[in-house]
């Protein structure tokens, strides 16, 4: 369901969500905002894809969700990392590092 046009690299959305949530529980919009800010606008997240991905990760057992009040006392759905989610983040992070450094090495060679 992530095939909708998204500026996030295919397959990295999960990693970005997990990473964002590892800091603190946060709602969907908050995740999108933070991904945008931290990436300095490189990644833009489409709400449909984001919320679908959140459902998927929750079903996979990596996230839990809860309706809470925000600072401006509006109810919103907050997501938080589970123990399994934390583990998954480590795996995905390691995996990503391995891949990106490999790609980086290759590119250096080409050049």
């Amino acid at each position, binding site marked *: *369901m992530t095939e909708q046009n998204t500026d996030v690299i295919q397959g990295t959305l999960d990693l970005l969500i997990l990473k964002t949530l590892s800091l603190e529980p946060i*709602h969907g919009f908050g995740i999108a905002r933070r991904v945008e800010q931290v990436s300095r606008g490189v990644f833009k997240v489409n709400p449909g894809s984001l*919320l*679908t991905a959140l459902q998927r990760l929750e079903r996979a057992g990596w996230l839990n969700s809860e309706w809470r009040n925000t600072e401006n006392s509006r109810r919103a759905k907050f997501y938080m990392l589970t123990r399994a989610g934390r583990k998954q983040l480590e795996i995905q992070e390691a995996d990503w590092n391995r891949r990106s450094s490999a790609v980086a090495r290759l590119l250096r060679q080409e050049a």
Partner: protein
Amino acid sequence: MSFLREVTHGLRGLLHRNDRDREIDDEVQHYFEQTTAAYRERGLSDEDARRAARQECGSPHTAKEQVRTYGWENTVRIFAADLHFAGRQLRRNPVFAMTAVLMLGIGIGANTAIFTFVNSVLLRPLPYPESNRLAVILSELGNSSRAPASMFELYEMRQRSHTFEQIAGIWVTSRALPGKGDPEQGKAGVVTSNFLQLFSTHPMLGRFFGPEDDLENAPSTVVLSHQLWVRKFGSDPRIIGTSVPFGYGSSIVIGVLSQNFRLIFPEDASVPSNVDYFQSTPIGPWEPDGPGFLHLVGRLRSAGSLPAAQRELAAIATEINDIGARTKVNNYRLYAFSLQDDDVREVRRTLYLLFGAVAFILLIGCANVANLLMIRAQQRRHETTIRAALGASTFRLIRQILTETLVTVLLGGAVALLLGWAALKAIVAVEPSSFANLGHVGLDLRVLAFTFIIALLISAIVALAPISTVRHLKLAEDLKRSGRSKTRKQSQSTTILVATEVALAFVLLIGTGLLVRTFANILRVDPGFRAENVFTLRANVPNYDVLREVQRALTALPGVQSASTVSHLPLDDQGNWYDYYWKDGTPVDQQNTEMADMRSILPDYFDTIGAQLMQGRDFTESDDAAHQHVAVIDEILARRLWPGESALGKRINASDSPKGPYQFERDWLVVVGIVRHIQCHTLTATVRPQIYVPYTLAPRPSMSIVIRTSGTVSDLASSVRKQIASLNRNVPITHLEPLSSVIERARAESRFVSVLATLLSIVALQLALGGIYGVLSYSVVLRTAEIGIRMAVGAQRAEIMRLVFAEGFFPVAVGIVAGVILSAVSMPLLGHLLFEIKPGSPEVYLPSIVAIFALSGIAMLVPALRAIRINPLTALACE
């Protein structure tokens, strides 16, 4: 953990759909609010902020829809929606729905019933312990290829064989039943003491015969069938080990067989499936030249060793031939068949044919449903086009069509369950005796599921037709038209479908025609006797004098023309007496090669049953053991032994027993009469020639009495009983019935097959005609405009009719041509079922061709009449 979440979340989504949707709505709402708020913070007005948010995030509806469709439960939900829609579609077109459901129901139901039947007769193993190890052993000698064995041969085989763990033998004869009360005739199985163990693991009560029963001074023992135990001994379990009256002495009951014990033997072995009781006989190397009378069954050491057993038997036959006198014939051979194969030898092909017939019906049914679906797809082209235009994906449309097909087939399956169950009940109710393997036959649900899946597959393929119309949608073009008119491709495929249906129905019609003609021929068979006004009964008579007394007393009854007796009634299954015969001057090595049915009779037997004495004379009172020993033979034997000359006065060697019942010895008999052959075993096959000897030469304790009356005599039964009782001779009588009932029984199988075939071809024809009607009706609807124009420019009604008929008859003609070819190829398969009619008989083909044309003409009549009633004005206005 994650799987559990997957399931619970999915279920929650499914069961509390509204809650979940609301949650998603809230979440998306919140997201958009936040986005808008963020823009507002940057100083945009409310209106501009909202617009900017939409620009950034797209439509909230799309987002909601995207989130909502996540998860497996959505597949379920869409399926449910499709199902709901399909149900509505079917309800909206009840005629379509009912036709399709009924056609599939009939097809699947008939297949299930017949396959269950085939399965229980052919495929299910015989109800015996390790039945795959049981084999029938037969001898080939002289002209007989399936001859029984002598005790000497059985003994030698048992001594020499290593591949068989056991070899046992049986012969069935009619004897007095054990038990108190009037002596009564029954079927006695005389078996070697190792026989019953092969057919059952243990008796219900007591024990089977064992080696102790073979000892020289062992007491007489019997094993009772369950049925006899219930009837004669009141189901008393204490009967085991007690002595019961038996014949003129007594016997100890050692066992009672279980209720479902049945003997299943090759049809020609004269071993009925329900034998009343068993006695044992020891096996020994007596009488090397003794007669063959034992039907042998062996249990192989292992299931796969039949070929080894065949080789071994061939070697044993050579050895026996070297030491035995009886078997010193030039072509003595022993061979074995698996009991399972041998039993179903005749029935197998009949059942396969039946199976083929119902498969045809399923095909015709599916062809019809295909047609219906195709027509419906065309009708709904407009609707489909609109749905596609509104954004339904092709996948979604195809899924919808498949769901509708599935629902139709499911409903068809439900109907099939009912129909199949009813059909099976009907088949078993008229269970013909040749399907002896039929124990309990219940509707096989696995079979139903199998047939159902087949139907589903066919329908899925069928559904491809409408799908192809979906895939080639040309939206703009189709939206402009209202969906009427016919494509060339479509009319081609309907032609093929209708032609297929006609061809298949035609083949069934031909097969049915042949079977019905066969049955008609069987009805016309002259069995060699006239059964009208002849009654039969069985009686126990101690000796010749009493028998003569009974005969005289019965002849004296008012309305009785004549009375006589015979040891074995024609077409009856009460055992058989048959033996080797030879004429004067036959060399020793050819003496034991040909067999005849032997019958012991009193004078007047031929007159009483209406047999025709062709030459010579009937027996008289003076034909007894003290005078010249005489015989009457049938025309077949006379022709075989003395072709071109008269058999009268010639000598023939056969077995008789002038010294007392069953004390058989070889004897030379002078032929004094020649009688027309009587059908003794079946109405259609001449099994063996016949030799009649006077009762005085072959007395038996039980005889069948035949009585010819001069018309309907009221209360014959009670006057016969009274008359015999008045003799005070203690002659019990049973089984009083008209001779015609044995003929009825003999016709049962042919009647069964022809009735079944008739029913099947009626169903097939109906389906095919329904197909023709449906296709043509729809075609007239599609061509309304065209017909309207033709009428507007002056076409006559007759021309319009011709137009419709031409369209209808074309596939019918193609179908008939294909049907004739198919029939010509397949009908010879029916050969063994046919009697006095050729598989290619034009007297069946021509009427069938005419019938199909006439009937399909009738099916076309309604659409044709509808066509000429088209009003040109309205037709054109429609377009």
